[in-house]
């Protein structure tokens, strides 16, 4: 924000800025390419239509033995899976309750203040997220997820005798503030963990190359940093998996498709990628429109789609707009197959859309986490439990999942780098992390090779609830390829 405090004042009144924020509110967003990560695949050719999906299962239970960073227990440890190939269990270093934590302190040899932000008893990491501003609490989940995971680790005795601390910053939805806070925190904090902001490109300009940055990059500038390790890295494009599913499940729907999206500089890559993914599979896009920040009239779109015989609709905008579109479609008795990326997995969609959103599909880059039934997955249960304990009042959302899993990746790397914690050591350990899935909490991403995931959980709204559909319990579908624009 040009005006320092405007992020708290003027910005709220800025339509498109506010909408950009609203787009990102809740889980998965159009402006957050992370939403597109659900559809990512590193390489490979498209599967033929109707190919049976390959399902990957995460570890069925919390691991009991520590592994070294980079060791991959699955088939795709050092390279992303090929087309339709199974990724197998995660190759990440597990961090289960039984993992040793305070070993160094017991042996008394962690080296004390070995680097910036490190003492004999603590390690402090930075986190810069948008918390105040147009939508108060927008990405508070990002730091809350980190704090929850650190609380869990600290309860186990910390790492090598050190307790983990978060130096949380709020960029107030301001570019310059994000940059300044990143620069300041880099001077005192050991690393960045779980940062999340639509202005992370601003912070990227101030991030020294030697500071580990374990943040889910929103911008291409942030993702391009060598020190950045996203648990689900992004790159322009999208995966074809969900579109393969729709094509094989709903015959002919692909011959008349529509695409509605909200475009920002940060989302053009995702939108172009989705379009390319659809077209690569033969989808005929009959209608597409970039909606405005305050658009609320989707009835005209529905009329046009119906006139054009549209049978499949892909929506790439905020949860509120998704609900509005679904209501408009329901009112006109227009019932195409409707698909969203992660942004559709939001309680606001259910609240506002009511029965109109029944039947809507969402391709999730993470395991579903709202329902108590999902607690059958140990990683989800652990996340739910510690979010409740350490961040009570912060709603579960995609951002806290990323905060949690980035923290998990950090702890893994920290352990692997040895008791004398150094930035260089952590960076080296991170460079060996070929794949990571947070024990199944997220679809397998490839931090070191910077390849996005192609895997996803297909969720459908049934009777006003999100339900896994055509995806085995605890598993992911990995049936697509990555399609670049």
């Amino acid at each position: 924000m040009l005006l320092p405090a405007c992020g708290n004042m003027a910005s709220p009144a800025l339509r498109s800025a506010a909408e950009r924020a609203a787009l990102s509110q809740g889980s998965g967003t159009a402006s957050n390419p992370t939403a597109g990560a659900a559809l990512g695949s590193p390489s490979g050719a498209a599967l033929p239509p109707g190919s049976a999906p390959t399902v990957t299962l995460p570890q069925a239970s919390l691991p009991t033995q520590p592994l070294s960073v980079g060791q991959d227990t699955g088939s795709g440890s050092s390279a992303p899976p090929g087309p339709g190939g199974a990724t197998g269990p995660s190759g990440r270093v597990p961090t289960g309750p039984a993992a040793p934590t305070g070993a160094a302190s017991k042996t008394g040899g962690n080296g004390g203040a070995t680097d910036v932000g490190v003492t004999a008893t603590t390690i402090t990491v930075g986190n810069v997220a948008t918390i105040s501003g147009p939508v108060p609490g927008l990405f508070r989940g990002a730091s809350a997820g980190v704090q929850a995971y650190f609380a869990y680790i600290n309860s186990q005795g910390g790492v090598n005798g050190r307790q983990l601390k978060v130096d949380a910053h709020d960029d107030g939805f301001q570019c310059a503030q994000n940059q300044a806070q990143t620069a300041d925190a880099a001077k005192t904090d050991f690393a960045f963990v779980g940062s999340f902001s639509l202005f992370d490109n601003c912070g990227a300009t101030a991030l020294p190359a030697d500071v580990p940055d374990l943040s889910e990059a929103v911008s291409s500038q942030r993702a391009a940093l060598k020190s950045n390790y996203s648990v689900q890295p992004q790159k322009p494009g999208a995966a074809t998996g969900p579109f393969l599913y729709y094509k094989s499940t709903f015959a002919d729907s692909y011959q008349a498709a529509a695409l509605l999206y909200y475009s920002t500089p940060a989302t053009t890559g995702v939108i172009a990628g989705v379009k390319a993914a659809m077209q690569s599979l033969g989808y005929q896009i009959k209608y597409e429109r970039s909606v405005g920040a305050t658009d609320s009239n989707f009835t005209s779109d529905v009329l046009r789609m119906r006139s054009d015989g549209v049978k499949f609709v892909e929506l790439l905008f905020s949860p509120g707009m998704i609900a509005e579109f679904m209501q408009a479609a329901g009112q006109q008795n227009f019932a195409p197959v409707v698909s969203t990326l992660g942004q559709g997995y939001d309680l606001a969609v259910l609240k506002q859309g009511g029965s109109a959103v029944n039947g809507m599909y969402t391709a999730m880059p993470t395991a579903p986490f709202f329902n108590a039934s999902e607690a059958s997955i140990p990683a989800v249960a652990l996340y739910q439990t510690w979010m409740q304990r350490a961040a009570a009042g912060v709603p579960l959302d995609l951002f806290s999942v990323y905060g949690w899993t980035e923290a998990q990746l950090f702890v893994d790397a920290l352990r692997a780098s040895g008791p004398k914690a150094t930035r260089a050591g952590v960076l080296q350990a991170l460079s060996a992390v070929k794949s990571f899935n947070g024990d199944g909490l997220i679809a397998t991403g490839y931090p070191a090779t910077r390849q996005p995931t192609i895997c996803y959980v297909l969720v459908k709204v049934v009777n006003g609830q999100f339900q896994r559909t055509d995806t085995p319990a605890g598993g992911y579908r990995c049936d697509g390829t990555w399609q670049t624009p």
Partner: protein
Amino acid sequence: MSIVLPLTIVGVVYGCVYAVTATGLVVTYATSGVFNFASGALGMMGAFTYWQLTVAWGLPQLAGLAIVLLVLAPLAGALIERVLIRRLDGSSLGVTLVVTVGLLLALIGVANLIWDPSKPRALPQFLPNDSVALPGVNISAQQLIIVGVSLSIAVVLRVFFTRTRVGAAMRGVVDDRRLLALAGVSPGRASQIAWAMGASLAALAGILLAPLVTLNILPLTLLVIDGYAAAVVGRLRSLPLTVVGGLALGLAESYSTGYLSGDLPDMLRPALPMFLLFLAVVFLRQDRLRAGRSLSGWAPRTVSRRRSLVAGAVFVIAATGASWVLPGSALPHFGQALALGFILLSLVLLTGYGGQVSLCQMTFVGFGAYLMGRIAPGGSVLGALVATACCAVLGALVAIPVLRLRGLYLALATLAFASGMDSIFFIHALGDGGIIKGARLRVGGLSFEGSHAYTSLLAAAFAAGAVVLLWVRRSRFGRRLAAMNDSPAACATLGVSINGTKLAVFSASAALAGFGGILYVGQTTIASANDFQMLNSLVLLLILTLGGAATVSGAFIGALVYAMFPVIQQHVPSLGQVSLLLTGLAAISVGQNPDGIVGQVAKRIESWRGSAASRPARVAGTAVAGSPPVPERDRVLA
């Protein structure tokens, strides 16, 4: 099957939506002369309160409606009128705008404290399972209710305002309060009823629209902005014409969605409401707007060249010294205050001296910074001058179509321009990531990369700008500005070229703002499109008015208070939760203190000297030859 008829029906329905959002705005303006920027916020509060009563607490819908529309909203409106609006009688346009923007921010702040924005809420539709099948399209009961309410309000209120004594009295408040009082009607009471009605209508709009959109604080608050075009078509007075304006907008959107596709229509469509607003403002006949008042009721003394030079030098030395004394964490904020102060100088010239309210200053700021990033990323002074000159040209281009406008219409035209630039230029021109990287100026081979050095440069730039402005105020051009500020009609009568003066001051102000943008982004080293969005210009006006609109020192004081707030917040983190509310309250206080901090201090000093009581206020309008000084109160109402 043709979709013309269905699209037309949909356009009519959404046109009525726009009309409903504009209704409260028109009623309060028509009956009090105050353009209520907080109308949307009142609607949002109404919708959330209704949600609280009916959904959270389970009251029946009718009871909730009655409580909100017949009790709470009217009470709130009456209270706002009594506490805020009545005291604005005779105030300038700038002050009334700032106060209502303050109210807007305060209401959003309160809503954020009461209703956690991160929790999803939904307001159910009235008769959710009922709809009517029209040719090619189904219309829900909720939409039909909106159409009915919109048309009914237009008819009923027209009858009320034209055929009843109370209605006529309410309109009379705008024309002449004293005359109204002589007729035995209490202007205060009439105005209070008008605001109670306006608040109730705003709440009704919020309750009706919330089920169709999202029950989110910001989107609901900002929805009304798109209705400005409808209100202006109704010349801010006529509700039937407001409905016509809403229908035009709704139909334009519906047809464009149905028939136009491609990158260009997609890019332009979001700007459609503001484009129509601009057209309406520029081409429709202006109604009886009260205009021609200066922003400030208090006029500062003019300062001699020598004193201004000495003061400028002292300022540079003091600011440079302060940069070495301040803690490192506060220094960037101090630098921002200096750069922001320079930007505010552009408004001192335009608004403080010239009396022209512009709501697009941040657009020029962003344009200057953007051009600098393109032309001279290395910080060349020549590049900065070219960028500044381009801003001057853009300022002139904006001014040309709005030369005949004044007062609120001029403000709305600039608002529409700024919004259009947001939607079309800033979103798309900044490219990947949407950021501008700033460069610090290099002057004659001298580098100002260091924080202290750049702070000194900023101080020198501010001081130079202030000295130039003070010189302008003493100059012939400055007297013409003062005359234009005081009475455009008198100016024209005396042969002073209003259009030429307006064009020049707009252009010069845009140049100053653009150069200020270069300085500011040089300080922060980075900026995003978000920084230059339309309502940031309102915040600029707010800051300047807080400091003192007609003075260069007011520009610095306002900027300093504003820029240093985050430093205080670092020590008191809880302030972050109420910063919006505090800012709103500060803006509201402008209604009590239209001369800003500097004006208050100056008046205190004058009072201590014992001269204030005996000396009539210096009046900017004395530049109009021969007009004798008049008491401040009378001048304000002149």
